């Protein structure tokens, strides 16, 4: 369970509140620059909010013991230093949270990077970097997943894989929060953010309302429908 409670940062976020519940995929939607990444970074303790709280299972991220076993996060890039191999990167991550070494090979297998495990992260393509980032997120087998723009840089096969992966995660009872400026994936709940404010919240049907499609609703809510 993720809950964001009246989180503000001057000029970026204004009293943003929403929740993401277990067993559901929550889509955090908004145009580029709406404040999605800022919110996610605050949730993960990377940035500090001016006011408000963001918690995971009622605890701020920074006070989670062995956080990788609670939350898996995918941000921009892989998070791996370019000169380190994928395996070396995952191994230090595993060590930091006392995860068994065998998990490294398991997650490499899960994202299809086993053959490239000995390659330096700097030599990875964009799609491979994203997969390495995802492997890191899965390392602790966390019940909560926070994914910032997970479809960026994926090829069509990768997008399909990611969609299947997300719904499997929800079926298994995980909490999935994913931010995106696209609407191209199945979600159970939707939060729409624009100019740092939450402008709509609910199931896709609720948010769609009288509009012809969720896309139309999104465009009119975010004031992007004029063209």
């Amino acid at each position, binding site marked *: 369970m993720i809950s964001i409670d009246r989180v503000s940062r001057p000029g970026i976020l204004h009293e943003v509140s929403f929740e993401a519940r277990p067993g559901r995929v929550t889509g955090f939607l908004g145009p580029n620059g709406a404040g999605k990444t800022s919110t996610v*970074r605050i949730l*993960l*303790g*990377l*940035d*500090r909010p001016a006011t408000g709280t963001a918690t995971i299972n009622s605890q701020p*991220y*920074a*006070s*989670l*013991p*062995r*956080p*990788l*076993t609670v*939350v898996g*996060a995918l*941000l*921009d*890039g*892989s*998070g*791996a*230093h*370019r*000169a*380190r*191999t994928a395996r*070396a990167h995952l*191994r*230090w*991550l595993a*060590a*930091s*949270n*006392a*995860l*068994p070494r065998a998990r490294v090979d*398991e*997650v490499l*297998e*899960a*994202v*299809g990077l086993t053959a490239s495990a000995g390659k330096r*992260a*700097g030599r990875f393509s964009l799609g491979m970097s994203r997969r390495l980032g995802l492997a*890191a997120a*899965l390392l602790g*087998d966390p*019940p909560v997943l926070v994914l910032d723009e997970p479809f960026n840089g994926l090829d069509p*096969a*990768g997008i399909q*894989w*990611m969609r*299947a*992966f997300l719904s*499997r995660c929800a079926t*298994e*009872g*995980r909490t999935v929060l994913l931010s995106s400026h696209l609407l191209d994936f199945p979600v159970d709940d939707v939060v729409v953010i624009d100019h740092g404010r939450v402008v709509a919240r609910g199931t896709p049907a609720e948010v769609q309302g009288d509009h012809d499609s969720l896309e139309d609703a999104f465009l009119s809510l975010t004031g992007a429908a004029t063209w």
Partner: protein
Amino acid sequence: MTSAPPPSSSAGPARARPPARSATLTELGNAVHAELRKLGTLPSLRWAALLTLAATALLALAAHRAAPGTDPIRTALRWTQAGFLVFGVLAATHEYESGGQIRATLLAVPRRLGLAAAKAIALVAVVAVLAAPAGTPYLVSVALAGAGLGGILRNTVAAVAAGLTLYLVICPVILSRFPSSAAWLPDTALLEPGRGAAAAVLWPVALLVVAAVSLRRRNA
């Protein structure tokens, strides 16, 4: 991507929590372990160590020929201490280079002061091993000062320039102008361990404290 299934949530390989009393220590131990792994798998650090040791050997030979009777290794280290400084800087700044590793680090170890401590402990351990042949703990002090500067400036070139200018240019100039300041300069301990020990401890500690506070306060 392949169609391999995502790991099942029931597996929970190691989810049992450690007992609360030793939790902080366990956590620190894990973080140190991770930092040691990081230091051990970065090619630039290996190069820095290798070049430093090679340069020290070469200059020690030159010093021995130029002025037999003096301690050639210490003479060589007057210059090659720079390598240890660079080592410390890289250990800190590689987090901020491409790839955004600092975010992965903070996601794995979100308590930032603990992270700063783990980094310092790991660096001390590695540099102590590297400096063992030279037989002077002073080199650990130089490396830690480099790490402090790296953590504050978050930019390798800037931190290397600042650190080397401080140790190799500013300090000697101050020393020649105010010989009585020796006990306060961070580099006195290399040639006069008895006189400069306190400064060799205080300077890096001060820099590391500033770096830790800045890590804690700044957004990543």
